[in-house]
């Protein structure tokens, strides 16, 4: 069925778009908020990344009875500010007040204990404070180095090869291909946001689209005109699809603009710059077009079924969980090692998010693209059929 052969649908589509673009809720909900949210995410994540990659100055509390020589050595380290406390518990109190990141209690005679191989350092930290965990980790590395140094000294004194103290070394190389958004912390978040706004952009208006028309009494006027009910449904779905697509695209355009600006704030978020292949764009487009088809048809069906705007919003809020969960899971799937499992390609929404994610990395994965497009088309056609059926049922369309 060509759009030109259904003039009623074209009329309904044009009118809906005109009305939607005059609705402040749509402009804010579908276009302003996605830009605001993506800008906020990028700047917040940029701030966090810059902070993490910068050398931190960490405050450490050390008990005053600790070995003085060892204490002096610690004070000489630039990244550490050493605060002495009366005892370990006083240090823990400071830790809880976030005044220090780590509390250390060394043996009184550290050098002697080290010589006997019995040097035990008591450390206190807060697992829920990332900087505290970071300080512990850094100190643990320092201890390992000190241990190695001690072994080296012993080996040297014994006339043996001191290199045996670090007989095995690890040289790690980051071999991530520098293309698309590969290596960017945003690559997991962005598909989630795109899927989210494709849904929420449409959700901001869909209740008004059918349930609202029933409630206000304009639906009856429309039903009395010669336009077929299927055409009314198709026209409304087309208009809603465009808003969903626009809303999702706004996120994508927002990230493209922010990535292209090469701001100091966001440089750590785009380690490979921001570029995407034509294949990637086509994969995203195919996935998004079919995804908004699913969202538009299903939300229109829900709005048609509901008696009024409030009922429609209740159903849509419940539906949003169905959309959110697979979208959230797409961010975490890397930890499960199931990215290449067959079922991922056939799981609705998750497959779309994965298809978009890989396309952003300029790795078009055909199993995701084909899976997402075909699953979306099947669900979309079923929801379209349901929506048209509901538009033809007078007990549904007449009830308010």
């Amino acid at each position: 069925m060509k759009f030109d052969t259904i003039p009623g649908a074209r009329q309904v589509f044009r009118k809906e778009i005109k009305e939607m673009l005059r609705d402040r809720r749509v402009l804010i909900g579908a276009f302003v908020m996605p830009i605001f949210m993506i800008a906020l995410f990028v700047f917040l994540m940029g701030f966090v990344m810059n902070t993490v990659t910068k050398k931190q100055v960490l405050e450490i509390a050390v008990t005053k009875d600790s070995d003085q020589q060892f204490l002096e050595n610690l004070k000489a380290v630039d990244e550490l500010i050493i605060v002495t406390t009366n005892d370990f518990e006083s240090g823990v109190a400071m830790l809880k007040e976030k005044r220090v990141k780590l509390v250390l209690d060394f043996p009184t005679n550290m050098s002697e204990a080290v010589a006997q191989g019995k040097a035990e350092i008591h450390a206190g930290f807060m697992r829920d404070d990332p900087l505290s965990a970071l300080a512990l980790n850094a100190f643990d590395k320092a201890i390992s180095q000190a241990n190695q140094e001690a072994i080296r000294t012993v080996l040297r004194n014994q006339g043996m090869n001191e290199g045996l103290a670090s007989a095995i070394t690890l040289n790690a190389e980051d071999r991530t291909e520098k293309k698309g958004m590969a290596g960017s912390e945003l690559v997991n978040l962005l598909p989630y946001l795109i899927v989210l706004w494709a849904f929420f952009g449409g959700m901001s208006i869909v209740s008004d689209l059918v349930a609202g028309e029933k409630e206000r009494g304009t639906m009856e006027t429309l039903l009395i005109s010669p336009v077929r009910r299927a055409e009314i449904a198709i026209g409304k779905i087309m208009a809603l699809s465009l808003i969903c697509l626009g809303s999702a695209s706004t996120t994508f355009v927002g990230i493209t603009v922010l990535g292209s600006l090469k701001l100091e704030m966001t440089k750590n978020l785009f380690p490979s710059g921001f570029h995407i292949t034509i294949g990637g764009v086509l994969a995203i487009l195919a996935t998004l077009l079919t995804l908004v088809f699913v969202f538009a048809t299903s939300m229109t069906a829900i709005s048609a079924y509901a008696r009024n705007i409030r009922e429609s919003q209740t159903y849509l809020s419940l539906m949003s969980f169905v959309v959110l969960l697979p979208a959230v899971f797409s961010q975490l799937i890397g930890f499960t090692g199931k990215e290449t499992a067959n079922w991922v390609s056939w799981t609705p929404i998750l497959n779309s998010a994965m298809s978009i994610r890989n396309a952003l990395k300029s790795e078009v994965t055909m199993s995701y693209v084909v899976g997402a497009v075909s699953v979306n088309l099947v669900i979309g056609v079923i929801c379209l059929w349901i929506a048209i059926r509901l538009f033809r049922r007078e007990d549904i369309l007449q009830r308010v």
Partner: protein
Amino acid sequence: MVQTDKISKQFHDPKKGLIQAVDRVDFCAQPGQITGLLGVNGAGKTTILRMLSTVIRPTEGTAIVAGHDVKSEAAKVRAKIGFISTGTALYGRLTGREMLEYFGGLYGYQGQSLKTQIEKAIATTESGDFADQLCDKMSTGQKQRIGIARAILHEPEVLFLDEPTSGLDILSSQSILGFVESARDAGKTVVFSTHIMSEVERLCDQITLIHNGVVCGSGTLEDLKSQTGSTTLEQAFLALVRPVEEASA
């Protein structure tokens, strides 16, 4: 012309079960006449008009509207009718003219013919001064005029008016009633549903009394009065409704 043939409608209510909203209603509305459907709120008038305008389908019986069957030729019926009611709202974020362009497009008008029809409808309803305002910004009377312009845009043969003056002030009501009279004078078939006796007395050439979904009387105003020996329509109405009321009790 409108001719109903034992038209009936049942609704299913989850709590009350089957509800017979309209039961074998017969009446005829001729061109150049105003046929009044008179009844109290909930009598079944709106259900009858919804069936005649093909928004809902009769459970039993049928009706011929402008030469087409409401059951089998619904699209053809819709192309030849206009429907006016205070319950049908306008699109608030469209101007009056945009609203008319939208419905004109739905009725198949394009280009110059669409513009001509819109200007005609605006002139007939004297809406030129506010046609370019957003419908949300219009007064109730202005909205009602744009609503009428929408209903007559495609020059329908048959006009259905469902309590068109309900909630309107006296000036707006008079303007609507004047429009109904001019539609009759233009040879249209007008079916006018109301519960206001004075409007029926002023406008209607034929009156069908509806109560509890059934016809309990029909004829001219004089016929109804003489049938019941009443001097007013109000008395005639009460006399004709009482037996139906007693039967249903």
